[in-house]
């Protein structure tokens, strides 16, 4: 397997008395898509937020490309993030928002990948104010923002929520392209059917604990299933992989 791009070393996060994440040790590699799944409040969001610098771990540390992440934001230049909820300055237009984020990231014209703007049907709407957009269109804008800087770490939180099937497919294809180019993709999703064909490994979290991080093939073969959406519930019920749970 390729060298670890992102490594969690004993990462824990406490909010008051509640441990949202407990001593997570794992590594995500270059050239893979990892699907993060688990029930509500299992720690998925905290896991990705700690990578993105949105929350500071209570214990442990995270390394990205061998460097421990801390107060220096430079490592985030390699990261593209598509949040679950897209909210933007109301009176800016789509074009102004794209310009703003490119400006903030100091992207040169040759560093910007804008073909997704056309693919998602946003080219004709660049002069529209963000406050007038539907939820689905805002998600498309969010996808463009995450992908246009050609990140080599892509984090997507429920990327297909609110998107039409064609746009969902296009966004997931772009995620696959990031993986194929050697990037690391982390996706959280409740719609397993949509992302299971993309995932190389699955990380299951429960109650702040990382229960397992396994290749898709191993999960399927251990449960005799052909689809992740069938395999995972079977596995969790039957303890088919009790040696890792």
């Amino acid at each position, binding site marked *: 397997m390729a060298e670890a791009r992102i490594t969690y070393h004993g990462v824990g996060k406490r*909010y008051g008395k509640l441990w949202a994440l407990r001593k997570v040790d794992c590594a995500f590699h270059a050239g893979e898509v990892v699907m993060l799944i688990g029930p509500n409040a299992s720690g998925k969001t905290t896991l990705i*937020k700690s990578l*993105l*610098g*949105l*929350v*500071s771990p209570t214990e442990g540390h995270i390394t990205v490309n061998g460097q421990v992440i801390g*107060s220096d*934001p*430079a*490592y*985030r*230049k390699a*990261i593209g*993030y598509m*949040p679950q*909820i*897209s*909210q*933007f*300055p*109301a*009176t*800016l237009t789509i074009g*102004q928002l794209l310009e*703003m*984020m490119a*400006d*903030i*990231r100091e992207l040169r014209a040759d560093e910007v990948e804008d073909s997704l703007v056309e693919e998602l049907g946003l080219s004709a709407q660049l002069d529209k104010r963000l406050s007038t957009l539907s939820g689905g269109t805002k998600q498309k804008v969010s996808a463009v*923002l995450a992908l246009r800087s050609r990140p080599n770490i892509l984090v997507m939180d429920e990327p297909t929520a609110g998107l039409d099937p064609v746009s969902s497919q296009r966004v997931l294809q772009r995620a696959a392209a990031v993986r194929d180019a050697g990037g690391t993709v982390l996706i959280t999703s409740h719609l397993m059917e949509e992302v299971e064909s993309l995932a190389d490994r699955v990380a299951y979290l429960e109650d702040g604990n990382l229960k397992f991080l396994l290749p898709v093939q191993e999960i399927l073969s251990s449960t005799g299933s052909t689809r992740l959406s069938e395999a995972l519930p079977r596995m969790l019920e039957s303890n088919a992989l009790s040696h890792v749970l």
Partner: protein
Amino acid sequence: MLKVFKYTLIDLARNRFVLGYALLMLLVAQGLFALEGDPTKALLSLVQVVMALVPLIALVFTVVYMYDTLEFTQLLAVQPMRRSAILGGQLLALAAALLLAQAIGLGLPLLVHSPTVAALVLSLSGSALVLVFAALGALIALKQREKARGVGVALAIWFLFVLVYDALLMWGMFTLSDHPIEPFVVPLAGINPIDLARIMVMLQVDLAAMMGYSGAIYKNFFGSVGGTIVAALILSLWVAVPVLFAFRVFRRKDL
């Protein structure tokens, strides 16, 4: 920071609330000058309106704006830029937008109807109050997780500064009128930025004499160059301290 400032200002310049604020101040100021025959009387009425309205609007608008843009702030925090740059840009833009709205809504009528030193001091005092209460609003929004609670705290603080503090001060001065309270009158006035701003304007309209013995004390201290400098320093502290705390909170905040 300048990039965040630029685009946040563009967004705020088109914000209905900011435009409405400019219009409201314009209507109030114009209305008062139109109703009162004497520009000085109109100015005095305007002082009371400004001292109550400006802090309220700056506080509540800042609090609400920061809550409403929280998800976008999270998106900015994921970019390769320091949190201080994000907050600095946002606060500068908020201050600039409110000051610009006030300059149009309040400054223009003052310039047209009463181009006096008193009007200038009123404009400057009003601007200082915008900065003070925008800074406090930012700190409140960052400290309180929930929007409803944040707005509640903001309104409570406004109420405290505009009404409660003065009521307590007057009660104290009345109760202790037989005691030598003069050394405490000036510092106590300085604690409340609204009172301080009001005193600076009243001194220009030469109403200190009408304010009784405390007015004479204010004139004696704040009427001098040194007193004016002290007043400016106190108002600057009222801006700087909340802003510094806001930066500290934001740097460590879980978003």
